[in-house]
């Protein structure tokens, strides 16, 4: 229990902030002009988005033949990027919903940006299967709607249809969850700013929020329910994504380990992406007292944990394949690691399993300049993980006569760059028009030592120390 004792005495937010300080600090970026760094980053992100848009426009106009796919490798960059981006989104829901249910109050500083990240990542992900259909203007065919062809319904027994529903629901619920969390903060922005576009936006979107506790009381119950719904939802989403593969008969795909393996990998890559963004945001937006070294330390531990789960999955699937005595399974895995595309497997294992081991050291977990490259490498590794699963399993399947190889075309690389461009463009705009830290939640976890901060006697929780500070406000024991 030494850790718990430590948590009790270290405030979650540094700098001995008052409530008004929180409002001022978080609203500051909304009141001042963007920095040079923001302009430079926005220009870079927007250029990447432009490159991607040109690539996608050319692909739609010409056809899927502009990609390097062939009859053997029917899925490659597109589905790799799809799975990669869906995975990135998972950490947002982990932080906003699962950590909320687990009463981890440190999440309050990071949940807003993590949830925003989820929404943008799922947007990036959604683009890939849609353009992969070849005729994206008919993408609505993926949903069952009354039509003049019978009506002909979609095949509810197909994992691709499950995927459609999973991603659609995930995007909608994440958006709603994010918006519900934003409502009180939008009211703060509305009341603080005098005029301008942001004030107008906040006035419309804050729905007339006036801080009434009767509303707060219901709000907490709604937030708790959304967290309860989002938790199984997020687990189901990557489970269903993994079924796109696991229900197929291709060696290397047809494995029962896939759902937990994919979910852990998704959270792993997502936490890395949250860390990448937070490390940049806290420096450039002067939020070091809100996103403290302690937050980064905890996130690094999460990264290490999920890296461990992913490592176990790698070992297990390899062992199972070799132990199966099925020649196709054995070959698929030996080919993965030592075949012509073995270098991708090498990148995957070194970035996802070996490099994160550095995080065992406390000194590493507390040095942003070491963590930052680690988080980037983790995401490189996780992108390659999906590439390894998809391409190395496909390119040498059952019949050697149909073996083939795969090389991405510039169009596919352009699309990959474009998806990063879309993600960062959205994120940078978000940083400028909405509060990046959940003010109403941070105010609830300010240090109890501070005069204007909570002393929580008389509640159902013992008031000694600040155990209450560990509780999310929506949950009563």
């Amino acid at each position, binding site marked *: 229990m030494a850790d718990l004792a430590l948590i009790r005495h270290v405030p979650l937010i540094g700098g001995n902030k008052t409530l008004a300080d929180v409002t001022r600090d978080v609203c500051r970026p909304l009141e001042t002009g963007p920095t040079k760094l923001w302009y430079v980053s926005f220009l870079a992100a927007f250029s990447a988005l432009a490159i991607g848009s040109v690539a996608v426009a050319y692909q739609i106009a010409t056809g899927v033949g502009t990609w390097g796919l062939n009859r053997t490798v029917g899925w490659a960059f597109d589905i790799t990027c799809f799975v990669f981006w869906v995975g990135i989104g998972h950490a947002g829901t982990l932080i906003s919903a699962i950590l909320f249910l687990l009463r981890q109050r440190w999440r309050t500083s990071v949940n807003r940006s993590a949830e925003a990240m989820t929404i943008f990542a799922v947007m990036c992900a959604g683009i890939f299967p849609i353009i992969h259909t070849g005729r994206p203007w008919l993408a609505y065919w993926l949903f069952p709607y009354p039509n003049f062809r019978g009506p002909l319904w979609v095949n509810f027994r197909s994992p691709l249809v499950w995927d459609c529903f999973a991603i659609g629901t995930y995007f909608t619920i994440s958006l709603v969850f994010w918006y519900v969390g934003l409502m009180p903060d939008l009211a*703060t922005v509305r009341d603080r700013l005098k005029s301008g576009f942001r004030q107008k936006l906040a006035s419309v979107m804050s729905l007339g929020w006036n801080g009434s*506790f*009767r509303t707060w009381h219901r709000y907490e119950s709604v937030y708790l329910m959304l967290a309860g719904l989002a938790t199984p939802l997020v687990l189901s989403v990557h489970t269903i994504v993994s079924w796109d593969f696991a229900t197929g008969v291709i060696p290397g795909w047809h494995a029962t380990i896939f759902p937990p393996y994919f979910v852990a990998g998704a959270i792993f890559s997502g936490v890395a992406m949250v860390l990448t963004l937070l490390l940049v945001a806290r420096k450039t937006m002067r939020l070091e007292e809100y996103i403290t070294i302690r937050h980064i330390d905890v996130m690094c531990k999460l990264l290490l944990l999920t890296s461990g789960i992913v490592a176990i999955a790698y070992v297990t699937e390899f062992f199972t394949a070799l132990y199966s005595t099925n020649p196709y399974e054995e070959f698929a895995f030996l080919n993965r690691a030592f075949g012509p595309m073995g270098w991708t497997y090498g990148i995957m294992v070194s970035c996802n399993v070996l490099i994160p081991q550095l995080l065992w050291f406390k000194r590493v977990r507390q040095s942003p300049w070491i963590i930052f490259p680690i988080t980037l490498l983790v995401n490189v590794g996780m992108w390659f993980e999906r590439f390894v699963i998809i391409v190395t399993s496909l390119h040498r399947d059952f019949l050697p006569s149909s073996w083939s190889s795969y090389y991405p075309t510039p169009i596919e690389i352009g699309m990959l760059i474009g998806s990063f461009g879309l993600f960062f463009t959205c994120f940078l705009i978000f940083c400028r028009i909405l509060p990046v830290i959940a003010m109403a939640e941070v105010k609830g976890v300010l240090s109890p030592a501070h005069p204007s901060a*909570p002393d929580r006697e008389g509640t159902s929780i013992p008031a000694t120390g600040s155990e209450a500070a560990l509780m999310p406000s929506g949950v009563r024991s």
Partner: protein
Amino acid sequence: MSRRVVLGIFENESSLLKATRESRQSGVKIVDAYTPYAVHGLDEAMGLRPSRLPWVCFGAAIVGLALKLWFEYWATMTDWPINIGGKPWDSLPAFVPVTFEVMVLAAGLTTVFAFLVISRLRPAKRPVLVASGITDNRFVLVLEENDAHWDFRRIQTLLQKHEPVAVEERFEGE
């Protein structure tokens, strides 16, 4: 109908909590409290009943689940049965994922919608703020005169004990 209310404006959560508890104990009617964040334990201090929204959530989940399951059976067994790889007509396990997603979607959207309706929140609504700084750093307790024995002094002394920033008396016309 017009009514007379007293506002106690506080700087911190604990003063508000103590004042609320004491007001309730001395039988003064609490109209509402206004806070910048969800103050832990204030619902008990105010004597609020637990929200009934979980029932809305549960109901919507059941309805969403039932409708989706029915639709999947109807579409694939009755309306246009298509044999896909010899799979049985009653493919319940294969119907589970979509049914689950639709259940979550129905429950989540309905709960939030019900919350907005009950709390009378709608886009572009003009907020009625009882005091400035409620969405920043002020905590306000609103008490209502509810009988003939209303004594402003007594209420004032009660609130003054908890270090308010201000105590105001207001007449509200409705």
